[in-house]
């Protein structure tokens, strides 16, 4: 198996071909020799193996997600009013838009799969042993960051499933002891899901999390190089005595082959089965059955078993213990023994937890199939998605066309009020232009006929009945309030 080679640096001077001259020119100026040596000559005890490809494949997927993500941002606007329209524009109008969006969406699933494979390989091979605690912990942090990327990215299209899945996801945060309510409000940018939620998730997804991810990827790779490749399970994790093989070429070729297979699979999926976009989020829809992305299904199923005062155990305590166990593995399992069959407890616990995840995932699918009312509604939702995908792209602001010159807000105070109405997310409950939704009453009509003083007072100090219906006191400047009142009063004229 070992077939180590002589490095290129020792090539004979008489073979001063153009390539060699170029290499020397660069080497003198940028030290390309030592860079290549660092990057490619990493010794692997026991030689290259297919089992070691996952780390490199993850790096490749991360680059692919970055590139597709950056180009998607060319056409995306993170606001509750535009997010869905712009994603629909990408999917239905932009050249190759559906393909690239699908590549990005399927890519996120691929990342989760490969992260799990990487984790499993490392765990089964006992590659966290032998002074690799920090390497392992940085990997755990990366796992968390990847899941956070998946969670924040899921909301951005602002379609039905994104909206409702994130509503549930952020609600779960409110079960965290002491800071729960605050945490939920922090994530949402308020009590309700709205335009601030989109911009917060967007900023997390494209600025904060990627920056932290890059930092931890660098740390992870550095710590890996510092500790050295652990090699097969028979190797001593601290001082491997097995003959080594360099990272280049065999391991590089294996990594590349798997990365190519990965991109072929993702490309075929994106081409032949592109990710669909559902109808725009409608918070007033009381029928909608939200289902999370497949990798969150086990957690979704798990939550069904916890009721009343015990919920906190299911949502917070047990997941926290599981996460702590995972992070602390190298401290708990300190022996240098790496062969799986000599580590029955470590392996047993791992298989048990992983098995529980798989079983719960399947159970959630089975539960949905067995319940006819759910099955009907889920089928209906699928129809709605397909119907939306068949419709041609509907541009924003199509309602105000030249042939029907309506709703041109003339009074600047009213126009300012409309802005306040939208930015305070009044439309989330009272609907666009105050038409009302299931969550809040219609404003156009009787309410709009009230006097400005009465309206200001109601907005500042809602009645007990209004508070019961989730109406919050409006906390804005007097100037904005005046504009908002003027806008609400203008709805009376616009109605009918």
């Amino acid at each position: 198996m070992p077939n180590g080679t002589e490095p290129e640096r020792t090539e004979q001077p008489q073979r001063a071909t153009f390539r060699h001259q170029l290499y020397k020119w660069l080497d003198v100026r940028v030290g390309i020799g030592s860079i290549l040596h660092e990057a490619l000559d990493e010794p692997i005890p026991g030689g290259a193996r297919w089992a070691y490809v996952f780390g490199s494949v993850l790096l490749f997927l991360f680059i692919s997600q970055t590139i597709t993500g950056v180009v998607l941002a060319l056409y995306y606007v993170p606001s509750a009013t535009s997010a869905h329209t712009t994603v629909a524009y990408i999917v239905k109008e932009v050249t190759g838009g559906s393909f690239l969006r699908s590549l990005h969406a399927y890519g996120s699933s691929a990342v989760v799969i490969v992260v799990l494979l990487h984790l499993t390989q490392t765990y089964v091979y006992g590659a966290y042993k032998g002074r690799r605690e920090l390497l392992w912990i940085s990997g755990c942090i990366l796992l968390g960051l990847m899941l956070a990327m998946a969670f924040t990215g899921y909301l951005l299209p602002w379609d039905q499933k994104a909206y409702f899945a994130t509503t549930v996801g952020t609600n779960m945060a409110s079960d965290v002891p002491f800071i729960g309510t605050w945490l939920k409000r922090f994530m949402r940018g308020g009590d309700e899901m709205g335009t601030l939620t989109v911009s917060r998730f967007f900023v997390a997804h494209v600025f904060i999390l990627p920056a932290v991810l890059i930092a931890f990827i660098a740390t992870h790779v550095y710590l890996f190089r510092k500790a050295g490749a652990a090699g097969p399970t028979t190797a001593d994790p601290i001082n491997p005595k097995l003959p080594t093989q360099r990272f280049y070429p065999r391991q590089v070729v294996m990594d590349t082959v798997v990365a190519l297979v990965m991109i072929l699979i993702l490309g075929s999926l994106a081409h032949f089965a592109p990710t669909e976009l559902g109808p725009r989020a409608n918070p007033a829809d009381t029928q909608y059955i939200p289902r999370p992305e497949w990798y969150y299904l086990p957690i979704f199923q798990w939550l069904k078993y916890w009721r009343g005062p015990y919920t906190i155990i299911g949502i917070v305590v047990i997941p926290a213990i599981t996460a702590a166990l995972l992070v602390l593995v190298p401290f708990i399992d300190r022996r240098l023994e790496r062969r799986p069959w000599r580590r029955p407890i470590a392996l047993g616990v791992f298989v048990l937890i992983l098995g529980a995840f798989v079983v719960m995932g399947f159970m959630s699918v089975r539960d949905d199939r067995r319940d006819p009312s759910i099955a009907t509604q889920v089928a209906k939702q699928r129809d709605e998605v397909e119907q939306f995908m068949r419709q041609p792209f509907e541009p924003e602001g199509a309602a105000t066309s030249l042939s029907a010159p309506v709703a041109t807000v003339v009074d600047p105070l009213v126009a300012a009020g409309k802005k306040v109405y939208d930015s305070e997310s009044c439309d989330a409950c009272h609907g666009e232009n105050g038409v009302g939704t299931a969550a809040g009453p219609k404003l156009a009509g009787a309410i709009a006929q009230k006097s400005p003083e009465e309206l200001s007072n109601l907005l500042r100090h809602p009645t007990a009945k209004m508070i019961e219906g989730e109406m919050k006191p409006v906390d804005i400047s007097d100037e904005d309030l005046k504009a908002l009142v003027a806008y609400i009063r203008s709805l009376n004229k616009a109605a009918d």
Partner: protein
Amino acid sequence: MSETAQAFASSREKDSVTRRSFLGVLLGFGTVVMGAALSVPLIRFALHPLLAKTTEIRWSDVGKIDEFASLTVPAKRLIKVEQRDAWRKIISEKAIYVLPPKNGTVRILSPICPHLGCSIPWNEAKQEFICPCHVAVFAMDGAKISGPAPRSMDHLDSKVEDGMLKVRYQYFRQLIPTKEALS
């Protein structure tokens, strides 16, 4: 760092060097081909605004044709143009000049200077269109008189329907001697 590897190397040095560089070339080639293949959709995606065909320009109302029958000097009018701005449908206001009728037909000028795209005002005192940027001067009918403009001012398509004067607003390419509409 890799003493062991080097110890292994000596036996089949020449053979493995060839293999190493062969794989290097193969990898490099494969990466370039894959990279090129993958960048095609990316580039097409990014260039979409340049590749996409724009929709037909609609006719905008200018005003009743009777209003313009007795014009003696060009009259500035604001028209509303319905446009697609990527995912938005917008209504923008554009200025045009309605010219005094000649032989019963009314013609309309775009106020955009064919030189570098400044808006040209009608100079009442001199009875000329004078561009404020680089002093291109045009006659009342838009014909070029002097200055850096490569051609006369551009006429817009117009028609009369049910007594209503209508115009099709367009932009034209700057700096060329012939009138060429931009998509």
